[in-house]
């Protein structure tokens, strides 16, 4: 049985005004368990209680009822924070510091020895691709760059649990892809990731399990692949077939009592298209990119189709 590292029990949050009158019931009796090594996504529209849940877990808000535990400890025990990394929704960082200084500062808060701190800060800055700007104050950074520094600070202590609030917010598609790759990499390192987002594609790409919140209530929870499986349809992808073959397949499907709902070329995602064009432009500077309409599918490791550039071989 896997170890539960993040847990909420009957977690409730009611926002009140100065006089104690109830204003908003932000979270209603949330019971949640996140196991070690999994990526858990909290989904929901704006105001559904995702960020409230995270802030309750981190002690930034006090629960009206119930408990929010990480490693079995509530927020009053600051020692647990030694094993937690947190990336807030907006990267709330000190803009007058440089990337190097900010990582050094956060490293000091963890009592990381100076040499290790320096090494880790350098590694993280390289990892988030800001080596060229590490001596500049954050106030000179773009939003995406600040976000990257925010991610680096969340990882400065090599945490066991990483809590990411809207991790791809403010990032360009490349940054988004990098972030998702990084989250998957964290999972490979055995870390537990709790993220919340309303960008469904991001969650779908990386999460093992998701919980869907709506108006402060947990509406659905489970594994992404099982939740997303549509049980009354069968999806078969092949390389491009001639019309005759398609007709033949229709007949076969009909023979078995099924119905072909659509036939056509597989559509790639805009994110894939964008990344392919950027990559092509980087490889051949000055040449117009020809990514559009040239996508082909390649079998991925898991057997599902994934789009790829024709130049990579199809």
């Amino acid at each position, binding site marked *: 049985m896997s170890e539960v590292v993040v847990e909420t029990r009957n977690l409730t949050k009611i926002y009140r005004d100065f006089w104690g009158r109830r204003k908003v019931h932000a979270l209603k009796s949330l019971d949640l368990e996140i196991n070690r090594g999994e990526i858990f996504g909290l989904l929901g529209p704006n105001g559904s209680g995702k960020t409230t849940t995270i802030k309750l877990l981190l002690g930034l*808000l006090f629960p009206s009822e119930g408990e929010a535990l990480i490693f079995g400890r509530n927020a009053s025990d600051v020692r647990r924070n030694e094993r937690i990394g947190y990336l807030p929704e907006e990267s709330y960082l000190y803009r007058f510091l440089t990337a190097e200084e900010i990582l050094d*500062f956060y490293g000091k808060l963890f009592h990381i020895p100076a040499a290790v701190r320096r090494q880790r800060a350098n590694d993280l800055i390289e990892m988030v691709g800001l080596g060229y700007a590490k001596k500049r104050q954050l106030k000179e950074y773009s939003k995406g760059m600040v976000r990257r520094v925010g991610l680096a*600070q969340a990882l400065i202590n090599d945490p066991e649990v990483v809590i990411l609030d809207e991790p791809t917010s403010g990032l360009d598609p490349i940054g988004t892809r990098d972030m998702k790759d990084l989250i998957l990499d964290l999972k490979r390192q055995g870390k537990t990731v709790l993220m919340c987002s309303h960008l469904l594609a991001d969650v779908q790409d990386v999460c093992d399990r998701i919980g869907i919140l709506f108006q402060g209530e947990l509406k659905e929870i489970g594994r992404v692949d099982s939740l997303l499986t549509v049980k009354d349809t069968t999806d078969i992808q092949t390389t491009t077939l001639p019309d005759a073959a398609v007709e033949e397949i229709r007949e076969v499907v009909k023979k078995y009592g099924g119905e072909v709902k659509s036939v056509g070329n597989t559509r790639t995602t805009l994110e894939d298209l964008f990344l392919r064009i950027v990559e092509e432009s980087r490889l051949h500077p000055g040449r117009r990119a020809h990514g559009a309409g040239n996508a082909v599918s390649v079998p991925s490791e898991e057997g599902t189709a994934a789009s790829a550039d024709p130049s990579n071989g199809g």
Partner: protein
Amino acid sequence: MVIEENVPSIFTWFPSAFLEWGMAVCVFFLLLGFLGMLFSSLRIGPGNAFRLVKKTARQTLADVFAVSGKRVGALGMLTFKEALRRKVVVVFIIFVLIVLFAGMFLDPTSPHPAQLYVSFIFNTTAYLTIVLMLLLTAFSLPADFQKKTIHTIVTKPVRISEVVLGRIFGFALLGTALLVPMGLVSYGFVIRGQAHTHTVQEELRLDDKNPLLERGQTTTARDHSHKIVFDKENRVPYLTPNRDHTHEIRMTERPDGSRHFELGPPIEMYRARVVQYGDIGYLDQRGIVSEKGVNVGDEWEYRSFIAGNTDAAFIWQFDNITPSALVDGALQFEFTQEVFRTHKGQIARQVIGGFYIRNPETGLMLEVEIFQSNESGKSVFRVPRMINISADKMNLKSGHRNPNGTSASRASAVAVKIARQGGELTSYPPEEQLNVGGASRAEFDLFADFVAPESSQFDAQGREIKRKNVMEVWVKCLERGQYFGAAKPDMYLRHRDAPFAWNFFKGYLGIWFQMLLVTIYGVVFSTFLSTPVTVLATLFMTLGGRFHQFMAMMGAGDVEGGGPMEAAIRLFRQENMTIDLNMNSYEVIVSKMLDTVFQAFVLFLSYLVPAFSRFDTSEYVSQGFNISFDMVLMNFCTVAGYAVPLYILGYLCLKCREIER
């Protein structure tokens, strides 16, 4: 001018102060706990509220003491760096500019230029630093909340106590880093600003009135000059003091008989007099011990008066009179007195007084000096260790007489002395008034004959206080119908001066203490108030602290005219403060009750508001008095006394606050 406050020893002060502090802190936190419980009970019920308060108290104890120095250091350095990158250094540049142009608006004709310069520089530094700290602290934590940068701090293994302490430490560091260069610039400004010398302008000429003296004049520098007095008998030149200083003067006599005078830089301009105060007592006109002297009609009863040519006297009792108190082989007493004349007399002539020392146990008494005083004068008395009354200038049996009967050597001594002080002796006291000593021996040892190894005294409660090495100093007015007035600090024993630079540094420590307090208050208020309210609250504490004494008096009900309600009634009824109100009147009873509640509130406030004025030691530096180490320690303890509960309060406020909201 004297410093009126007699600073007790730290060992005398600390136990009672610590006890009072402990009680005040306990009451404060018990009250806080009670209020917390009251409000929590309304929301979650009394049982849960009790458990919550208990848990909070336990956590507070753990968090307040388990603080990581490294984290506090990191947070402090962050605060420091933040302020620096927000161009706080501009304040130092403003300070330098003010100093550079200070000469344009400081009065060059001031009779006390050193006091003016020191006061100016201390006030400028204090105001700049305090206002800066007030604003910085008020903007710091609220900005952290507003920009949510605190989210990335409290989600690290950082205790709330470390956040509060880190802020305080950071701002204290910043204030210190600003004060150090400011102090150096200030010291240079004060010393260099008054550096000057003179040359001899007028050749010395024989004094018309005193054949023993020659007089001359220096050149004018910095809007003043000095008179040169040459004592022909002792062949010593002196410079009369002017603008609180004099100059070293060296005379070289050439083979042809001419004299060359060379003047040095100012001396005695910047001093740090180490003084010891004694306990004052009074004898009335019949020579009977009295609680105080005569009131000559002053509303301000600071000074009591004694009648001239009677048995009335001021008696100061000094303890710990040991050879270590000798300066250049003598005890030096300085006396500031006020003269009250009941008749004009000779208005150009000063009033004569006598200075005596007495052994409180044996009763042996010696007249040390007959002095003259103008309406508010200052006299210096030197009592050598070995006193030979037949050989020194106090010899009253000399055959050389002035026309009015005073001995010639005595006369010249008085004339020289008064000339050195910038005055002029116009006539001499009669011999019979000078002959008050009455000792039959010729030689005395100061410590063997006039200092009692042990002496007992009874305080107001009748308790016996034993003191060691005690000597009495008596002052009498010797002119019929004239009065001398003095208060306890008007007579002090002057020890060897402390270095002025060191005193200047201690004066700056006073600003540092004030800066620390403002910082602590600012940080604590900012844990639960918004920026504008934090500014106002800190400002209230800072300004309120200047009126701390009044608040304490009001809280204790010692203000004449009662509290605000009673004052209002007096206003409407047009009854002045000294009239007792009719206690049977309904409105008076109600007003007294309301005033009692108000007084309790003010008393409570007076414990919250530190007495800022007690940290302001600039007056000591400007007046040339040494700030005692006891005083520095007391101020340090007082700051610590405020810092500890305020730090805990700041912790509690931040702890009980939802960071996100």
